[in-house]
């Protein structure tokens, strides 16, 4: 396949394994065995059974009537938010825990940003009875508290990382250092399509179930397995590659990845790697990277902890370079508005990460009636505090401005369900 990883671990100019010798034996061991394990009948049997009975796959493909009407398209939502643990992350952790078992590893480590991957890892470790240590930036520990509590209840040790910006990049650094210090008994479950080869390819394979299902479900519902456009948010890029993968060779399916733009590109407070990055090396792979001229990695910013990452999976750098995927951006504000729109029009509270993908609805010129799939990568339970603050802020603004920003909001008392005197409906 044109967009698959080659024999040496590269996607075009990107990928590879830029790791210190200390990690070489572990990464080499994984590289030599992952395909053999994945292709074995016993792995496939166990993996597929767990996806079905434990994760709850296939996740539904839901036709969103109200948003379809509003944007004059046919919009389908791929409901990864309905998976066990609330996001697509579990597709990968189920796969990797089985790999770890085949490799005889007893101790599992992982990094996490929003906590979704941490919870998904702690979950599969609990199920297998394996030790689990989750590295999480101190900033993220504070802003994603419900997920920290879940991980702890699941029996994982959550290590708050105090280096750097105390977010996802730093958590990943610390997980890698832990792996260097505990090489023989530990497997590192990377949560996205990042890291040294073979991680990007391995995670891609586990997440590709998303587009495999979209094909079948769309065929059943519309008679054609191809939509016109697929949209997903991208940080490291695991949900996006999952939603794109089986369409990469169908060049007439438009693929759109939405990066987190924080406060906007011009402010420098952004996490839009493709927009402002240059080729460089982060976490063991060559990819697009936010960095200074001196090659120092720049601290990103996004309201969404899961997209707050200065790199991007090497496969996405390649899909960008070959023009197969279009990369656009959504700011914090645009994402928050989009989250509220989906919540109030479809009764689905999305994760803040996913909200960036939804923001694309306002940014893309669709053909009338075209079929669009958006990957709803996760649910918004973990983001309630951010949403609550946002709603409170909207309500402080004068009513003219409320109209200006294009959404009606009820008084705070209504949001908390105390007052039923709702004096208006959502006005898109």
């Amino acid at each position, binding site marked *: 396949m044109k967009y698959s990883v080659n024999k040496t671990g590269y996607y075009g100019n990107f990928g590879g394994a830029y790791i210190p010798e*200390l990690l070489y034996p572990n990464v080499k061991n994984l590289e030599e065995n992952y395909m053999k394990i994945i292709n074995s009948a016993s792995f496939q049997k166990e993996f597929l059974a767990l996806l079905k009975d434990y994760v709850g796959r296939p996740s539904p493909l839901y036709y969103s009537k109200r948003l379809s009407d509003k944007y004059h398209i046919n919009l389908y939502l791929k409901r990864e938010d309905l998976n066990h643990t609330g996001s697509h992350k579990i597709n990968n952790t189920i796969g990797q825990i089985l790999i770890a078992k085949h490799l005889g590893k007893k101790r599992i480590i992982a990094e996490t940003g929003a906590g979704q991957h941490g919870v998904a890892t702690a979950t599969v470790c609990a199920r297998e009875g394996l030790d689990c240590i989750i590295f999480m930036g101190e900033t993220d520990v504070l802003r994603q508290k419900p997920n920290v509590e879940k991980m702890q209840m699941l029996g994982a040790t959550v290590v708050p990382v105090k280096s*750097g910006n105390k977010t996802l990049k730093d958590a990943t650094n610390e997980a890698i*250092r832990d792996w260097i210090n505990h090489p023989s008994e530990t497997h590192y479950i990377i949560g996205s399509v990042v890291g040294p080869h073979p991680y990007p390819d391995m995670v891609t394979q586990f997440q590709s179930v998303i587009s495999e299902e979209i094909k079948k479900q769309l065929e059943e519902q519309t008679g054609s397995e191809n939509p016109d456009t697929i949209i997903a948010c991208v940080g490291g890029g695991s949900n996006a590659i999952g939603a794109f993968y089986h369409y990469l060779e169908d060049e007439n399916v438009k693929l759109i990845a939405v990066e987190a733009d924080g406060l906007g590109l011009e402010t420098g407070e952004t996490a839009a790697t493709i927009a402002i990055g240059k080729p460089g090396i982060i976490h063991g792979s060559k990819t697009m990277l936010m960095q200074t001229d001196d090659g120092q990695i720049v601290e990103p910013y996004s309201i969404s902890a899961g997209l707050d990452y200065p790199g991007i999976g090497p496969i996405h750098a390649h899909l960008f370079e070959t023009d197969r995927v279009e990369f656009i951006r959504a700011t914090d504000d645009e994402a928050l508005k989009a989250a509220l729109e989906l919540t109030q029009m479809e009764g689905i509270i999305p994760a803040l990460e996913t909200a960036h993908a939804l923001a694309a609805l306002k940014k893309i010129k669709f053909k009338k009636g075209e079929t669009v799939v958006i990957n709803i990568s996760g649910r918004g339970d973990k983001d309630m505090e951010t949403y609550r603050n946002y709603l409170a802020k909207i309500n402080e603004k004068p009513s003219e401005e409320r109209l200006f920003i294009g959404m009606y909001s009820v008084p705070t008392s209504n949001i908390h369900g105390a007052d039923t005197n709702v004096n208006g409906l959502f006005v898109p």
Partner: protein
Amino acid sequence: MNRINQLFKDKQNSILSIYFTAGHPEMGTTKLIIEELEKNEVDMIEIGIPFSDPLADGPVIQQSSQKALENGMTLKKLLAEIKDIRHKVKIPLLLMGYFNTVFQYGVEAFCSDIKSIGIDGVILPDMPIKVYEAKYQKIFEKYGIIPVFLITPETSEERIRKIDKLSKGFIYMVSSSSTTGIKNKLDEKSIVYFKRIKEMNLKNQLIAGFGISNKETFDEICKYANGGIIGSAFVKAIETGENLLSQIKRFIATIKY
């Protein structure tokens, strides 16, 4: 002859090599530290290029790197500061850092610029050997820069042989599977590994690093290797920046005497 090869020709035992991070504890100290180390009869120096995300380093070098960047150090400024270092300093000098800073500088420009300064070798632990062979070996050889590769207790014999073939000066023998500055003892497992490597009769000299922090560990390592590299312990000894020169003198004395 490259100064590294000259050193190993003249001396095969107890080679003392010191690592420090450029720009730490303060800007403008890099040249002073190098000169003072030579004055105190250190045999070789690894000058650390600070990096924002030093994956193979423990807390001490991480913090020195962060401090150096906060102080405003960059690779360009580092090279400017040591531009005339060869007016005084005669011992082998190496640059050590992470590949991304060199990659952004441009590998050929880097080799050319450090050659003109008189840098003898480079240690980039996250530059893959395959990438070196395919893309950069010719450039390193063109400018006579010696690349130094690492081996660890987990490195296979086959790979060690390959690294020995590719190396032109010495092999950096990492004493245990850990990040830098984590262990300050050499355990039995390390000793077994040192003996195993020694018996391989490699063509390159062996300089050990990671876990060497004082006279005891340095003397122990010198039974098995041609010498040792002290990094974290030295960085820590000078971190306050007070009485820098006398701190350096004192630290080296504790290793040597």
